[in-house]
């Protein structure tokens, strides 16, 4: 085991140690430490990705002196390293673009607590990506839930308190269902590590004993994780939470944290249960229907919003619907499309929230559309960035969103029958609805206002912010043009994932 093999473990430990260390730091030092941690995690994850591209198989890293199934372990493969690199890149860009405005939302003495939450959220995301044990998944999902709750409520006004309460109640439902599912699965198999658990599940399916409880377990865990990632019927907490939180928190929450829960679900499906059992138990039609409904109803609700942040929050619900559509198609190609959409969603959604904040900032802090006329001229970088991100959401070629919709359509066509028709109709309808509200927004920020409204003079946009936003634009365009290598990594990674 060379040093590079240890890098994922170092990343996790670095984030947790940084979180503990930040509790005694002053605000400036805390922010600097968060930047350093995010940058280091990005570099180490990229090196891990390079290592896993040279290896054939995924390798386990034993946490302690005892191998599975007696001790805990994490497992590092291509797919995990790619997701870790993608998420930490998005986090670094969001921090560079959004950390400078936190003084408007967070009081100065609580800034170090805010940075603790960001560090520990990153640690939890990394553990969820790499882990190979079901109970570790539960514990670190709880850490992520508490961290996201605190990320929202650090802005102290009535709206965030109510939104956080609703958020916590729904997430506590999800955690309860998840824990009951894990307890039952332990009861019928006796293992907690994922690889022995898979053998026990195969045994159960073959002998047919305890098959009923296995179905209920799959249903419980799927329902728990679906509530936590804002799938369609359970999305009630999402619009308020994303709209009223500080923009950096919304970017991290909707871009990284909500998608990490879906990655755990994919890991559970592929590694613990096996995709064939999932399809035979008819779980995928349910996910398909919820995904399609989420796409359409999320977009319809977004059209009727007058507040720009709520509009973007509802479009976030629609984008999560795309991921569940990909999962619901039920083939490997569908899962690959879903994973690629996770990366694109992380990149685009975070930059949408941050550029929206910049536009709102130069419009006298008003969030309604009629005050945002001409904001694209008052803040040129933010306007361009918002336009390109909106183009990706709609699915215009040369952006990442286009490749996502193309892959979803291809995987839907490959099945045939009414699934094919439904996928194509849903994609077309949702693209149309997306364009209604996104292109409308882009047009209105570039419209000359009817009468010159008097806005207070905003603070100047820092060059770092502009550079970070442009970097994310380059990332979106790269995902649109050069997506072939990434798709190939996802495909080969998914083969060794289970």
């Amino acid at each position, binding site marked *: 085991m060379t040093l590079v093999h240890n890098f994922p473990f170092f990343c996790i430990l670095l984030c947790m140690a940084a979180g503990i260390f930040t509790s005694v730091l002053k605000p400036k030092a805390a922010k600097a430490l968060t930047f350093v941690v995010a940058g280091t995690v990005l570099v180490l994850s990229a090196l891990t990705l390079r290592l896993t591209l040279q290896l054939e198989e995924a390798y386990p890293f034993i946490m302690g002196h005892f191998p599975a199934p007696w001790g805990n372990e994490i497992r590092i493969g291509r797919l995990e390293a790619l997701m870790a690199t993608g998420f930490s890149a998005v986090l670094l860009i969001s921090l560079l673009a959004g950390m400078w405005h936190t003084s408007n939302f967070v009081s100065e003495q609580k800034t170090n607590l805010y940075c603790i939450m960001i560090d520990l959220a990153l640690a939890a995301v990394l553990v969820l990506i790499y882990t190979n044990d079901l*109970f570790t998944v539960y*514990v670190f999902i*709880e850490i992520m839930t*508490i961290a996201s*709750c605190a990320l929202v*409520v650090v802005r102290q*006004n*009535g*709206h965030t*308190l*109510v939104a*956080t*309460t609703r958020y*916590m*109640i729904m997430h*506590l*439902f999800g*955690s*309860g269902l998840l*824990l*009951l599912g894990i*307890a*039952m699965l*332990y*009861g019928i198999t006796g293992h*907690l590590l994922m690889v022995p658990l898979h053998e026990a599940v195969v045994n159960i399916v073959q002998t047919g004993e305890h098959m009923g409880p296995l179905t209920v377990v799959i249903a419980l865990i799927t329902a728990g994780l679906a509530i936590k990632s804002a799938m369609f019927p359970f999305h009630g907490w999402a619009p308020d939470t994303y*709209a*009223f939180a500080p923009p950096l928190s919304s970017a991290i929450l909707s871009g990284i944290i909500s998608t990490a829960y879906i990655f755990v679900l994919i890991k559970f499906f592929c590694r613990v249960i096996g995709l064939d059992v999932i399809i035979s138990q008819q779980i995928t039609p349910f996910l398909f229907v919820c995904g399609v409904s989420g796409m359409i109803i999320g977009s319809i609700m977004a059209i009727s919003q007058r*507040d720009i942040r709520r509009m973007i929050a509802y479009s976030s619900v629609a984008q999560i619907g795309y991921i569940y559509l990909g999962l619901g198609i039920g083939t490997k190609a569908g899962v690959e499309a879903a994973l690629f959409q996770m990366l694109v969603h992380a990149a685009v959604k975070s930059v949408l929230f941050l550029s929206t904040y910049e536009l709102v900032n130069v419009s006298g802090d008003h*969030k309604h559309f009629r005050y945002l006329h001409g904001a694209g001229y008052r803040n040129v970088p933010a306007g361009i960035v918002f336009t390109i991100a909106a183009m990706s959401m709609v699915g215009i070629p040369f952006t990442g969103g286009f490749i996502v919709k193309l892959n979803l359509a291809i995987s839907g066509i490959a099945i045939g029958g009414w699934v094919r028709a439904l996928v194509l109709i849903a994609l077309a309808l949702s693209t149309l609805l997306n364009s209604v509200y996104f292109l409308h927004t882009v047009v209105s920020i570039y419209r000359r206002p009817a009468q010159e409204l008097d806005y207070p003079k905003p603070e100047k946009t820092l060059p770092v912010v502009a550079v970070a936003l442009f970097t994310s634009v380059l990332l979106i365009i790269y995902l649109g043009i050069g997506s072939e290598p990434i798709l190939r990594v996802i495909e080969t990674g998914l083969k060794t994932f289970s």
Partner: protein
Amino acid sequence: MWQLLYENLEQTVAVILFGIGFSILLLQRNLIRKIIGLNIMDTAVYLFLASMGYISGRKAPIVVDGVTQTTAYINPIPAGLVLTGIVVSVSFTGIMLALTIRLYRRYHTLDIDEIAMLARGEDA
């Protein structure tokens, strides 16, 4: 089926309590009652988990007199899982109670629907 449920009595009671706690968390409008429902729900899951470790006729997993045969002790794994779960539940209860205190100080009511209505009137 009643005979099977009676044999697994602990798990039956745990599941009924889970449903009751779930319904309380869903239905009650008072915030303190919701938190109590959350605690009932979590405790029910720990009862379920702990009941899976017991094997009749064996003792608690503390090694006495150097006896280390498997037939002498019950399964120690669920006990460890319940330990972790209890700490997580306490943390969540603390956070929910702190949120309730802040909401009460601001809106002077514990009814979640009234609070939502009052908050809607404020400007963002």
